[in-house]
């Protein structure tokens, strides 16, 4: 819901939080320096999440695969940024064609200038909104790479990222966030990317893990994280960057951004505790990897909800996300797929919890541009949220499966047996992270 009159929401929220609205409302679209500063900074925060994800993932793989794994995240900054400027932004947010896709009239950022675009963010330069959105497009395919870590060919991965961003991300982003997008028009609420980023990457991860198959030796041979301190550092950077991701999605500074910031932090804190306590009860020991994983699950789950729910609802969503995502990650062994770094268990399931949580706890009192959820007398919203989950999940799973099938036929997506044994770092990139 970043798209609509952010100032109106901001004022409503400020009022509720007991702050004094210090600025007058104007209908004229003009650049607000405070809003612009916050959104540009938020874009930079979200940018940092991709190297953060690389570090988070890199610590969890075996030492022979850390560089290949980190590069699969980091390279998205290179590839997707260019795709976004050339066609991605136009397909996602450009003038709508039948609710399905943007046209190409903004290709190459033609006409995306320094004047505000009233449809998306009336108080910041259009390019600031474009740049902020670009960072979301960058990190989403990087999340998927966790599902097939330690076995995907780098060249094929680059092709996958280009096709997936163009054919899966851009349309879904349009449906949910663009003016005229059909899910947006139906009133599905996704504040910062529960469908567009999380369910999208999580379900794509499930399709990818299923299609490419397990790592050789899995699950008989233990394949353990080789550097969990790195994973904590990466998780910390994700938490930090996520303030830009979520609070920045108000596309304005002020009350709504503050509400989203607070909800984000509380849900994450609750999810850390949720995951840790369930794990402690289940296995007898609390782990650092569990605490960090819980944080990411909470960040994921609060993403669609953060601009619509209050602090206690955020804590509830976080607790549930921490506990349920733990269960989902444990269950994968019974399901038999090798989602190596649990992109589905954390992002897919976490995203769904957040979408349902939005349907339950959303309140127009928090955000006038939102809707009331189930517990605030709005049963209809819950149905819309479930529809949003179903559409996003089916689209991501199906689209990813088809792209991988075609790529596998055309160029092959998996490294050879020898390369997998040797490790991606040496076999694919000719370098080692740890040398004598």
């Amino acid at each position, binding site marked *: 819901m970043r798209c609509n009159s952010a100032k109106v929401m901001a004022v409503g929220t400020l009022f509720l939080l007991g702050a004094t609205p210090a600025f007058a409302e104007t209908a004229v679209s003009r650049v607000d320096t405070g809003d612009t500063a916050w959104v540009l900074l938020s874009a930079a925060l979200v940018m940092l999440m991709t190297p953060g994800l690389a570090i988070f993932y890199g610590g969890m793989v075996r030492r022979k695969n850390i560089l290949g794994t980190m590069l699969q995240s980091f390279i998205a900054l290179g590839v997707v940024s260019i795709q976004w400027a050339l066609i991605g932004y136009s397909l996602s947010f450009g003038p709508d064609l039948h609710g399905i896709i943007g046209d190409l009239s903004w290709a190459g950022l033609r006409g995306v200038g320094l004047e505000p675009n009233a449809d998306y963010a009336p108080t910041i330069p259009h390019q600031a909104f474009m740049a902020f959105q670009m960072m979301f497009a960058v990190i989403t395919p990087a999340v998927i790479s966790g599902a097939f870590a330690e076995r995907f060919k780098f060249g094929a991965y680059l092709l996958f990222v280009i096709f997936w961003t163009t054919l899966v991300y851009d349309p879904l982003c349009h449906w949910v966030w663009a003016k005229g997008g059909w899910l947006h028009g139906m009133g599905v609420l996704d504040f910062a990317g529960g469908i567009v980023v999380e369910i999208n990457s999580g379900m794509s991860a499930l399709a990818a893990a299923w299609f490419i198959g397990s790592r050789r030796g899995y699950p008989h041979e233990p394949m353990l*994280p080789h550097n969990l301190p790195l994973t904590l550092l990466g998780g910390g950077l994700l938490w930090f960057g996520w303030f830009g991701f979520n609070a920045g999605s108000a596309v304005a500074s002020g009350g709504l951004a503050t509400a989203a910031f607070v909800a984000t932090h509380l849900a994450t804190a609750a999810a850390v505790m949720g995951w840790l306590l369930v*794990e402690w009860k289940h296995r007898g020991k609390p*782990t650092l990897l*569990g605490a960090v994983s819980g944080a990411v699950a909470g960040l994921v789950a609060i993403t669609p909800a953060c601009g619509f729910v209050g602090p206690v609802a955020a804590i509830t969503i976080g607790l549930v996300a921490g506990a349920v995502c*733990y269960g989902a990650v444990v269950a994968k062994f019974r399901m038999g797929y090798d989602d190596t770094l649990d992109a589905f268990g954390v992002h897919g399931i976490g995203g769904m919890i957040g979408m349902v949580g939005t349907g339950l706890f959303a309140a127009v009192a928090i955000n006038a541009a939102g809707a009331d959820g189930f517990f605030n007398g709005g049963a209809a919203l819950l149905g819309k949220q479930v529809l949003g989950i179903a559409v996003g999940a089916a689209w991501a799973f199906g689209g990813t499966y088809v792209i991988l099938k075609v790529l596998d036929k055309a160029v092959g997506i998996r490294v050879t047996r020898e390369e997998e044994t040797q490790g991606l770092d040496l076999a694919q990139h000719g370098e080692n992270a740890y040398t004598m």
Partner: protein
Amino acid sequence: MKKIEAIIKPFKLTEVKDRLIEIGVQGMTVTEVKGFGRQKGHTELYRGTEYNIDFLPKIKLEIVVIEEQVEKVIEAISGIAHTGQIGDGKIFVSSIDETIRVRTKERGKDAV
């Protein structure tokens, strides 16, 4: 000349080293190794799943001494590294044909 290879619990290394220096050992080589004996492995927990880890971390000491020192070294290591718990390690003794000090080219006992 004999080579003594001792596999010990990692936390015993400093004590063992100090004792060996006390009894006149001139040098040693230490390696972090993994392995198992009767102790077998242990379990580790990652994201709610228990993994059986067969190979436990141990320290391998390699010391080359003249024959007269062998028993003293064995006594020192087996005394200090001993906890009485399973997994205390093992000591292997083998013969060394030749030792050469790289800097001076000295050979045999003089180089040990």
